[in-house]
């Protein structure tokens, strides 16, 4: 079962410093996009990685390609993409997003949005999300750009 709100709740509970990016960020910003995973860009400092490890334990996280393997701390300290499966569905932990942007580069463009009735989290703003999807340039990213642009136009007149 895919339950992004439950995953966000666990991350917030463990004080993980993260920004929601990708399709869930688009949805929280106003454009409901079908997606099967929660993408989070997280801070790679030592303290935050510790919080991430605790949250991953609570989520019963495993690598999607290796369900027998739980994510190791050394791997979580890297800038790469960690594609995980949790008890609440797929969750991708990103050390960076294209074009080589880390948590510190994007935190200023993140908004505090209420993801559920009881909690807020940082979510990448729609304008920056569009720029990143353009930069990534995969067919699935380009396919949603018209909807994201229309949402930005309707919401902000941009």
């Amino acid at each position: 079962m895919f339950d992004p709100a439950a995953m966000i709740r666990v991350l917030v509970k463990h004080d993980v410093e993260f920004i929601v990016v990708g399709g869930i960020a688009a949805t929280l910003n106003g454009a409901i996009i079908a997606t099967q995973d929660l993408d989070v860009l997280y801070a790679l400092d030592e303290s935050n990685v510790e919080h991430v490890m605790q949250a991953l334990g609570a989520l019963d996280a495993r690598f999607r390609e290796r369900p027998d393997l739980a994510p190791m701390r050394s791997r979580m300290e890297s800038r790469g993409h960690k594609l995980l499966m949790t008890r609440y569905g797929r969750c991708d932990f990103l050390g960076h997003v294209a074009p080589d942007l880390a948590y510190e580069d994007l935190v200023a463009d993140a908004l505090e949005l209420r993801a559920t009735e009881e909690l807020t989290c940082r979510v990448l703003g729609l304008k920056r999300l569009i720029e990143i999807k353009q930069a990534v340039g995969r067919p699935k990213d380009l396919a949603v750009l018209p909807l994201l642009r229309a949402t930005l136009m309707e919401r902000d007149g941009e």
Partner: protein
Amino acid sequence: MRVLNFLFNVWAESEAWASPRVGGRRGVTGVAVMAASVQFGLACVINRADTEKMKTSSSEKAPHRIPPSPDDQPSHDAAGVDLMQVRDALAMTPAERLKALTEMMASIAQLGRIT
């Protein structure tokens, strides 16, 4: 209110004019005619007041306060995006949208299991 008064007037006037003027019933007819007249007058006053009220409210509503007709707004943008759906999604709170997405994905997953 205007319709009710109008109907009451019609009834009262018909009762008045149709009442038999025999013996002691003559006074009753007179009362009925008087009641009809009072009601008719009252209806005229109410109608006039309603008309004035409508005039006032329409003059208070400047053209810019009248919501645009749905026909005046484009339904799709140049890229073919359904703008009504965009507006519907924007009308929801972030939490509501996330919940809607979660339910949508659960339905899709269920459909996948069925088919």
